[in-house]
């Protein structure tokens, strides 16, 4: 019970932090409005999917260093397939790319099971492989994206019966994010599979002895990670309009947000909500620092310092709680 309280307390604390940050943003820039919120949501989108990809694997007691490379590969694949193709063709591209992410993620998991090499090394090797594959698909940023996909994450959602003032604060990107994550996460969390994922993360041996198919569960966890990473790659293509074969800073950001979001790196603890809120917090800090006209390089220092400080603080709290 106390652990549950602590975990929920962590997420609640993050929410409070988010609200405080919004207030600070409003104070710095009184004109900060719905439009800016929309661009925040669009900027968060690829990060959020990267974080979701990392979260699933971390909960299962592993780590996935190939998230950013997977996003790059899926992004260039989508962009190059849609290049010069018709709008309807994108209807085929999207499921294809998602399936590709799922399969490649499963390959990660299968390699870990079959070779018995530590996950950190397997995903490191896959990072090189996926990066190479991305370079083979497109050797320079390029490609195109269907208009309707671009439209999917720009603008707001008009909901009948709601005044425009509230409508304006519901950017489509946010809605896309919530829907995509919920469709996968909520049924998963309630299913036996979800329970198994938490079980193998918390104690692989105990899970094995209680009859959880450890190997299969691990493979599925990595496959889901690949699926989320593919969503991230698509989001990347949708927001930039092209595909870039060089992975972005998503690996570091995803690990940071996972830890900030209260998911223990040992596995078995935490949920998806915390890390997602953590992503918003991290991006909002960056927005604030930009609004304050701080040198972007200093911004990197501050971001890193915040990350380290928060993680140290979190570790300190857990240590206190244990004593």
């Amino acid at each position, binding site marked *: 019970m106390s652990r549950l309280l602590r975990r929920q307390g962590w997420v609640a604390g993050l929410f409070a932090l988010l609200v405080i940050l919004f207030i600070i943003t409003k104070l710095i820039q009184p004109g900060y409005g719905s439009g800016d919120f929309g661009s925040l949501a669009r900027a968060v989108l690829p990060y959020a999917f990267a974080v979701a990809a990392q979260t699933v694997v971390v909960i299962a007691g592993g*780590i996935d260093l190939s998230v950013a490379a997977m996003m790059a590969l899926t992004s260039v694949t989508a962009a190059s397939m849609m290049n010069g193709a018709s709008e309807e063709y994108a209807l085929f591209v999207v499921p294809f790319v998602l399936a590709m992410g799922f399969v490649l993620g499963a390959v990660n998991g299968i*390699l870990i099971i079959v*070779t*018995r*090499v*530590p996950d*950190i*090394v*397997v995903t*490191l*090797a*896959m*990072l*090189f*492989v996926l*990066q*190479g*594959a*991305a*370079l*083979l*698909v497109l*050797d320079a940023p390029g490609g195109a994206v269907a208009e309707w996909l671009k439209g999917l994450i720009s603008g707001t959602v008009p909901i009948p019966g709601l005044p425009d003032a509230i409508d304006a604060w519901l950017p489509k990107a946010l809605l896309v994010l919530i829907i995509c994550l919920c469709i996968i996460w909520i049924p998963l969390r309630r299913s036996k599979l979800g329970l198994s994922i938490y079980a193998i993360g918390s104690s692989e041996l105990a899970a094995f002895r209680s009859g959880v198919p450890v190997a299969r569960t691990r493979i599925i966890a990595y496959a889901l990670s690949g699926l989320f990473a593919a969503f991230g790659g698509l989001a990347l293509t949708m927001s930039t309009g092209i595909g870039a*074969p060089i992975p972005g800073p998503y690996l*570091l950001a995803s*690990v*940071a947000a996972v*830890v900030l979001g209260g998911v223990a*790196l040992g596995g078995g603890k935490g949920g998806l909500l915390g890390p997602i809120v953590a992503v918003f917090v991290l991006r909002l800090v960056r927005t604030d620092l930009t609004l304050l006209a701080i*040198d972007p*390089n*200093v*911004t*990197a*220092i*501050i*971001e*890193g*310092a915040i*990350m*380290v400080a928060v*993680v*140290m603080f979190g*570790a*300190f709290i*857990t*240590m206190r709680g244990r004593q």
Partner: protein
Amino acid sequence: MSISAIQPVPFGRRLKRFMADRPLIPLIILLVILVVILQVLRPGIVNERWIANTIKFAIPLAILAGCQTMTMLTGGIDLSVGTVATMSAFIMATQVVNQDPAVAFLLAMMPAVLIGLVNGIGVGVFRVHPLIMTLGTSLIGTGCLQVYQRTVIASGAKIPDFLAWLGTGVTYGFPNALLLFVPLAALIVFTLSRTGFGRLLYAVGDSERATRLSGVQYWQVITALYVISSVLAGVTGLLYIGLIKAPSLSLAEPLVLPSVAAAVIGGTSIFGGRGGYTGTIIGALILTVLTTLLTILQMPEGARRILFGLIVLFVTAAYLRIVEER
């Protein structure tokens, strides 16, 4: 009677046991095979100059992989080595323009010590996961470096002659960098196998709880370890700038992941408690030869990376099979 009862052990099993007892031998065999492939593909390439060149490029990787080996023995990892090496190299190259080389050296090593200290305190005292801690400090370090770059953009940079001599020079067919590397490697091997500190590293990696219960000050060991690791990375940076001769803000960054791979190929367990530095050195050599091999094949960059990843994975898996099946 009893003599005839002893069945001769099948050759395959005997070979396997032999290799498992001496884990370095399969690695050396792999290295030789790679060199032979290289020689077959491009006859005449394997000469004195090529060997010196390979060693020159393998040494920075091997030192960084040494950082990984030592931290991995305790169950950790140090991903900040790339940033630390880049920082010390860049500061050295820019400070030496106006300062005495000795002063520049001290200035260059300062961030290394500092980052190592922060890493050590974070991991040892606050119990932050080493992966996160070192990624975080490397982010901060990169930011600081970018800010620092602005302040020295006017003064320019130069590579001290001594570092260029150490990094690229060859005397009697031996790269000068060996002058630094051989004592350093001997020191690391000696520390790991013969000193109390080395034993503590293995002990912490094997069972942190047992170590603590037997009266070891965990945080002191870890802090010392990460400072040492960072200082080694700083020295690598100085060596590497003498080799590459072009200071940039991402100088040593491409070496980070290969350094982890070199340590793992060399047989150090990423979960701690098992491994050693000799294997890591051969791992670094294997990766360097492999890179040359892939370059010579003239494949597109993408295919080269794919092969690199696959080979690292395959070698690690095969090696684990050989060593662990007893």
